[in-house]
């Protein structure tokens, strides 16, 4: 198995505040890694460093064999990394179909008909084939997030990053998005998912990573981590989340 993401000693500072405090994390091809941890522990910062939405301060990040750093061809690296945002971030002035087809045309050089055919196929896969002509504002939150997933998939990325993809959704829409993600996980896509959905983590993750105060405190198979947490911070976190 090849490593898709390799982070070594990654430190991220915002001014004097240390958001990531020496993170080592390797994600293998086809692996589903779920990142959990309390608010402010650095989960978003961690995955945002992978595609350099945040520039890390120290340490090394290698994605699919390419060093991610200042001066690297970030466009090419980002093209291989799909990202799904908590707030969807669909382009409001474009139809759903164009949202999905845009980057394949602009970055991969597909023709519009090719890209739209691909987009249509992906929209069908997330259950939205009939919504292609609509604009994001005409869709529910759950539908928008499924478009967000299709948009990320359209680049055929090597890895997908999810930053709390269901946190902005009304409770009744969480399920439809998690279902799509679970289907996706079965197809062998590499995924790193930040989420508070412990049920999803237990069912889908190959490995769960627990972060606190900018460090990875504990990681392992979901059953081991959830049923026999060794670190007291993890125990407290799980208690708080599960009794919530």
């Amino acid at each position: 198995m090849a490593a898709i993401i390799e982070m070594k000693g990654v430190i991220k500072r915002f001014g004097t505040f240390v958001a990531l405090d020496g993170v080592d994390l390797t994600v293998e091809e086809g692996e589903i890694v779920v990142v959990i941890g309390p608010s402010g522990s650095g989960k978003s910062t961690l995955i945002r460093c992978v595609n350099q939405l945040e520039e890390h301060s120290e340490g090394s990040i290698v994605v699919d064999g390419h060093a991610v750093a200042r001066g690297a061809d970030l466009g090419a690296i980002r093209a291989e990394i799909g990202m799904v945002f908590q707030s969807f971030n669909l382009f409001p002035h474009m139809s759903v179909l164009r949202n999905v087809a845009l980057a394949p045309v602009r970055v991969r050089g597909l023709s519009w008909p090719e890209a739209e055919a691909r987009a249509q196929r992906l929209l069908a896969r997330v259950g939205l084939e009939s919504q292609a002509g609509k604009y994001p504002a005409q869709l529910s939150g759950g539908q928008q997030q499924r478009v967000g997933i299709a948009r990320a998939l359209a680049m055929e990325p090597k890895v997908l990053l999810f930053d709390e993809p269901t946190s902005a959704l009304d409770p009744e829409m969480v399920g439809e998005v998690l279902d799509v993600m679970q289907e996706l996980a079965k197809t062998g896509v590499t995924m790193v998912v930040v989420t508070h959905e412990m049920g999803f983590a237990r069912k889908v993750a190959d490995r769960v990573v627990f972060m606190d105060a900018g460090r990875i405190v504990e990681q392992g198979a979901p059953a081991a981590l959830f049923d026999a947490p060794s670190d007291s911070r993890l125990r407290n976190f799980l208690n708080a989340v599960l009794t919530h």
Partner: protein
Amino acid sequence: MSVFDTFLNWKVFVQTLPLLLSGLSITISLGLAAILLGFAGGMALALLRLYAPAPVRLIAIAYIDVFRAIPLLVLLVVVYYALPFVGLRFTPFTSATLALSMVSAAYSAEILRAGIEGVPKGQFEAARALGLSPLRRMTDVILPQAIKLVIPPMTSNAINVLKDTALASVVAMPDLLKQATQAQALAANPTPLISAALIYLILLLPLVRLVGIFERRMAARGR
């Protein structure tokens, strides 16, 4: 003599109308040229101000500040009467277009910058995360949204430019105001001036109303 014979004399009006209309066409040409050039220049300045490396950014900021500070009339006079001393001689139309565009570019730049900054951060991030090039991020994702945000202030700016074209009459530009003052002298009657004022109103009132409509619509959407 009635008030109408003095201020809205039909015979004088009919006689001088062709002159006024030729002035109006120059006013509109000048206004449109300055609005379009000002928009293009403003777009370039806004992008430089936001994204260029420090020295270029400072030059953009300096330009924007200087041309928002200088009175347009002063700039116009400098371009038309002072630049010939260093060998730069422009026609009245070119001088007026230059002066108006340079100032409009500075105002447009600030409006467009605010528009770009008004696009949610998540839009920039999504565009970057997809691997789009900086140019594509702007043209495909950010600018279409930014321009929509700045339609009301840009329309206000266009109104100001159209109004300011009247200043061009000081550099012997045969625009609407200049033609009206000349026609008044010829006819020894103020009717052409009144007519010119009415023509300015007919041109600009709809635009002013349009800004009001835009702003109300924006406010409704912002709720």
